[in-house]
């Protein structure tokens, strides 16, 4: 399924995570943006903020609905994608290009425990 690249990890909360050296880049999955509809607002933490795995780190809003963003791993926010905050529709255009934050994980092993492509697509199938 090309909507879910095999080089990414996923969460049951529909976020994706990608290892980039010592940090983990985080965004929402194709399914998340599809379910939300047109994304019109994104609220992200500040650089330096601490995020906790499976806890809210921000908010994403479509014309219709408000949804929380959940961190895949615990750690410190080292980068925030201000371009997406300025142009939230980028999440719909390509949710894998429109990353949201970059986290320096407190425990690098957390990343390995995330769902892989097969496990995530299975979860989506089961939810249908």
């Amino acid at each position, binding site marked *: 399924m090309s909507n879910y690249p095999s080089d990414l990890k996923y969460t049951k909360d529909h976020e994706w995570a990608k290892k980039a050296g010592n940090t983990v880049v985080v965004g929402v999955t194709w399914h998340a943006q599809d379910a939300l509809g047109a994304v*019109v607002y994104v609220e992200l933490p500040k650089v330096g903020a601490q995020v906790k795995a499976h806890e809210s780190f921000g908010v994403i*809003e479509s*014309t219709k609905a408000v949804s929380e963003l959940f961190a895949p791993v615990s750690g410190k926010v080292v980068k925030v994608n201000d371009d997406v905050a300025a142009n939230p529709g980028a999440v719909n255009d390509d949710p894998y290009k429109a990353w949201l934050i970059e986290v320096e994980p407190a425990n690098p092993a957390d990343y390995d425990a995330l769902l892989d492509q097969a496990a995530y697509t299975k979860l989506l199938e089961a939810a249908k």
Partner: protein
Amino acid sequence: MARQTPLYAAHQKLKGRLVDFAGWEMPVQYSGLIQEHEAVRTAAGLFDVSHMGEVEFKGKGALDEANRLITNDLARCADGQAVYAGLLNEQGGFVDDVVAYRFSPEHIFICVNASNADKDFNWMSSHAKAVRPVNRSNDFAQLAVQGPKAAGIVQRLTSAKLDGVGTYRFTQGQVAKVDCIISRTGYTGEDGFELYCAPKDAERLWFAILEEGQRDGILPCGLGARDSLRTEMKYALYGNDIDEVHTPLEAGLGWIVKLDKGDFIGKAALEKQKAAGVSRKLVGFELTEAGIPRSHYPILKDGQQVGEVTSGTMGPSVKKAIGIGYVPTALSTEGATFHVEIRGRPVGARVVKTPFYKKP
């Protein structure tokens, strides 16, 4: 188990995303909310609103009977004219907001909200004196064709002369060989028609309109676009902006109340409220800082909650975060400022003129 409209198969065929709305399985969007919204503003959109209910008063005294139940005045209408009105309780709060059609003084047809259809019918039945209302909700499907190209599309499908059917006027005739009530009404702020037809004909009419409107760029539209379009016009949505505890005077709908007509349910309460002055008003506002207002968010002044947001969105045409909400009368004038509490944070807001959207 959610009910399905006669267009359920059509929605599936067109891959509409179905959600439960007021006990009905309805499409919230097809191609995308913003695309659909834009189609209605610039070309045309087709909505299934078959979930709406219909109640009819027929026979001698029908007009007087209906007029005792609603705030607007059917006696002031011509045959073939419709009015927007409140159906109120004794306290002046909304049982529902409705559109009442005057076919003749002996035949009044009232379109009610899906979520209130049973409540309204019971209310009308228990308060009717001489003419019994008939619940016709299962006898009608309703399609709304809205947008600057809507009239042209419908006209190409009917021999009825639509030029002569002004806003809030209606006629009867065939559209795409389907018998319809053809009503120049809507909930989008655009020109267009609402077509009432027999459920068995609804799908035929639906696809005929889509086919005829293809060259104009018509799109099937869901409830999502319907909501953003009406919010940009500050049209009230029952259950959000109006309810049993808010009156038409508070909701800025004084124009649908005719206190100089005969008695109607809620009149005494409204007269009293009008004399005393309303203490809160429904206003339209824009956020002056980042965020999107949503229903039930608190409205704050000087750190104290003074009101509540009833509707809000990022308006696709106005391209601003807009909201509707009740505030104390002192804060209801254009330019007044307050805060909307969004996830615990006060965000600046300013009262603006409505409708938010004005035709370019």
